[in-house]
């Protein structure tokens, strides 16, 4: 127990680092994912091809390799950013491929008749999308999106090995101070559990709220 109380500030900083990394990467992943999903369902062929390529390549790239490329490769192009930004870029791009696939399959679950009915009522494209398609797609997307976000939170652990302050990396500091290694890891594990359970609770809540309106 005193491993936690003695190193509270180290753990707390690590936890906040992980939390912050998760939030910022999630925002980037959602934004990119929406754009790429838009590309993949658009009637413009080069955009569709680009979206397909983006998703295929990123889904089959090991995240460690992506970190390796972003953190060590971009500086070769004279692009030097803080490690945190690099980590967000790698995590965000990687997760955006999964977000895109989730959104796309969500849009595809909306029956064609819904769009046809909306258009025959004279709604514009933006209205069709915003008022008819997306609200229905949203429902079938919430649960899988939750799994994607949990995976993202777990993947942030990799950033610790690339000089970003986060929860898993705290074990080095604490270990050097001579605390029991097993208990060090128990508290780290607990921190991740808190984070993933919180995300899963949040998405359960969202799911229940949209389910009621059906």
């Amino acid at each position: 127990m005193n491993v936690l109380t003695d190193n509270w500030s180290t753990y707390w900083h690590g936890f906040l680092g992980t939390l912050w990394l998760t939030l910022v990467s999630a925002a980037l992943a959602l934004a990119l994912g929406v754009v790429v999903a838009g590309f993949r369902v658009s009637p413009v062929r080069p955009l569709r091809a680009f979206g397909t390529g983006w998703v295929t390549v990123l889904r089959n790239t090991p995240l460690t390799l992506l970190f390796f490329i972003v953190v060590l490769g971009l500086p070769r192009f004279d692009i030097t950013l803080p490690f945190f930004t690099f980590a967000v870029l790698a995590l965000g791009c990687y997760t955006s491929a999964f977000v895109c696939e989730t959104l796309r399959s969500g849009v595809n679950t909306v029956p064609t008749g819904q769009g046809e009915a909306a258009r025959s009522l004279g709604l514009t494209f933006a209205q069709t999308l915003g008022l008819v398609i997306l609200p229905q797609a949203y429902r079938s997307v919430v649960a899988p999106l939750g799994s994607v976000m949990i995976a993202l939170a777990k993947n942030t652990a990799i950033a610790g090995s690339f000089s970003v302050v986060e929860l898993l990396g705290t074990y080095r500091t604490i270990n050097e101070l001579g605390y029991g290694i097993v208990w060090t890891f128990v508290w780290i594990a607990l921190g991740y559990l808190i984070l993933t359970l919180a995300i899963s609770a949040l998405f359960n809540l969202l799911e229940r709220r949209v389910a009621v309106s059906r």
Partner: protein
Amino acid sequence: MTVESSALYDVPGPKALARHRLYGWLALLVIAAVIGWVVYMLFHTQQFTYQKWMPFEYEGVQELLLRGLGNTLKAFGWTVLFALPFGALFAAGRLSEHRVVRWVSTLVVEFFRAMPLLVMIFFIFVALKAPAMWALVAGLTLYNGSVLAEVFRAGVLAVPKGQREAAYALGLRKTQVMAYVLVPQANRAMLPTIVSQLVVALKDTSLGFLITYEEFLHAGKLIATNLDYDLPFIPVVMVIAPVYIGMCLLLSWFAKWLERRGRRSPKVKGGAPVAPAGLTPDPQG
């Protein structure tokens, strides 16, 4: 292009087609500009000099890369070998009739699915002081095995209830029901998902890099940080990334192929007309 029926837009008319073509050209222009910039940067930062590509001519370097690739595949192979039985065992545990076995299995599976894989690998490596490869394999096995257990369980539960009931009615024991009736049928539906999970395992072998297991990425880093070769980082990435992505892509395509094969399988197709035959009157009769 065949227009997919989509809820989003109608089949475009001539005006819309012209507009889409315009957008298409604009998009191509932007993509070409980005690619052009990357290529310019590659030349500008002198990534194609002889000195940076020379190391790949050395046999020692080639051997180093191949050994790394071999180690990656070795870790992957062991993971597959251990994770599949692990998954089967705990799927059976979760489907067990004994409450204690069920609870323990559920606890194990849920715990290892919720933990970040890297935390487990580091724990086994640092706290249990396992050799790097076995730490990696053990972590991958625990995580992927747990996910596979859920896949197996879902597959077995998805077999129609009548199959199980019929098997019990014939007097089969529960092990026989599982082995001869449920698992063979579930197998077909599960196979693509299992292979997709193996893609995840293959991708995650690269985590071994972080615990200094001498796998493919590690070999790449050794070459990339060598001053004698003028730090050939980008050339190394250009060699390593296609191999990694290619391996995962092949496995992903295999999963997709399995899925498509399963869907148009004669058994599945032949099964469908049998059911309605008795219910709907023959249109010719």
